[in-house]
């Protein structure tokens, strides 16, 4: 319980900084809109085939724009040795990592909401038909992306080639999660009923989230402290 309170404190701190500076969110939102715009040149925005692939397009946008958020997560602690100060505080490494993931999670959800509105307007996709189901899929998949982003944001924070290494490492790891999110979102956006097939993918999302969150907590000390 104490760890969770510490994690919420870290997430609150990150979100407060982001609220004042808006450095990650502005860049990620602009990038997401730019990708959505570019997709409209690659595919006919109103073709039936584009609607079929709408889930895939959306999750690619979320994943690409998300990398900009993760890059800043730990990097903003580098000036003035803030990361060292956080690590030498009574805060546990697992709480710090969880807090960073929670911060990423909220920022990504905001980004997804912005992208969905833009996507609905540009591509005439009625994403609001199944709001609850879509919210559950977004929450599960976004948590998976956030925890992987936090872990590898921490792993690469001190590297010379941080901006290059992060996408190279996280995208292959996110493949099962993105496949699952794309499959379910595609069904919801096409207004098709949820079947056992989609529920199976839902289980993949849950399994991914549970395993990677547990691994991240177990390896937090290794990643951040030693």
């Amino acid at each position, binding site marked *: 319980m104490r760890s969770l309170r510490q994690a919420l404190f870290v997430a609150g701190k990150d979100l407060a900084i982001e609220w004042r500076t808006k450095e990650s969110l502005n860049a990620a939102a602009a990038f997401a809109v730019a990708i959505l715009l570019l997709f409209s040149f690659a595919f006919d925005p109103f073709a039936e085939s584009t609607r079929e692939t709408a889930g895939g397009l959306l999750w690619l946008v979320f994943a690409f724009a998300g990398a900009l958020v993760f890059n800043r997560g730990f990097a903003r602690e580098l000036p003035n040795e803030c990361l060292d100060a956080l690590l030498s505080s009574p805060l546990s490494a697992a709480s710090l990592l969880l807090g960073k993931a929670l911060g990423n999670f909220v920022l990504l959800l905001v980004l997804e909401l912005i992208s969905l509105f833009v996507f609905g307007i540009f591509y005439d996709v009625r994403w609001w038909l199944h709001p609850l189901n879509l919210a559950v899929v977004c929450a599960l998949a976004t948590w998976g992306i956030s925890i992987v982003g936090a872990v590898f944001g921490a792993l690469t924070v001190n590297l010379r080639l941080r901006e290059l290494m992060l996408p190279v*490492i996280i995208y*292959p790891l996110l493949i099962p999660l993105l496949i699952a999110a794309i499959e379910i979102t595609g069904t919801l956006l096409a207004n098709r009923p949820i079947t056992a097939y989609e529920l199976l993918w839902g289980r993949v999302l849950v399994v991914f989230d549970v395993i990677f969150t547990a691994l991240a907590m177990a390896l937090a000390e*290794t990643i951040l402290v030693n």
Partner: protein
Amino acid sequence: MREKIVIGLVVAAALLLAYNLYQIFLVLPDEALQGAIYRIIFFHVPAAITGMIGYFVALALSVLYLSSGNFRYDSLAASVVEVSLVFSVVNIVTGSIWARIIWGIWWTWDYRLTSALVCVLIFSGYLMLRRGIDEPTQRARLSSALCIFGCIDVVIVWKSIEWFRTQHPGPVLSIRTGGGNIDPAMEHMLYMNFYAILMIAVALVLIRTRQEATSREIDSLRRLANAA
């Protein structure tokens, strides 16, 4: 001693491989449906198994490094991943050649092909991460963590894509099917070639580990010289 083991392994692998090549190309008959191209299975399957074994050995070594801090485990894990990656690429390339002849395409988004590609991408990232970090302790710690995440992810990919698309031929080895999917003589040769390829892999890992240890020694000497 290590050199003698390496030489012994290489000689044994070369002799076994020569015998296998003779059997595969001159003794075994063509397959009834696929003709001569089926022979690629004698390299494709052993390379896949060797690669997968290597990744899970690297996982165990990474856990050992994190629990003990002994750099020998880290050097060994890096060498094993590097060699496994080579065999994974051999697996993908031979599979693509076979697919071009049998299916008429170089690639299809089948679960096994996709998971093999994901493996290669994850562990290429592992090697790139190692190259991107100069400090040995940080390099060992971070790459061990990535190896653990990567191996778990490979299992999830394998299981999840299994529910997604399947075009790849099913398992043929009796150990998985209970028999009847492959001629016993062909299966025997498949195992024989697996042993040869495994011996080559072990020899390469031993050579690569020695190089890794030497480069770490050189690195620490350079640091000492710079500090002096």
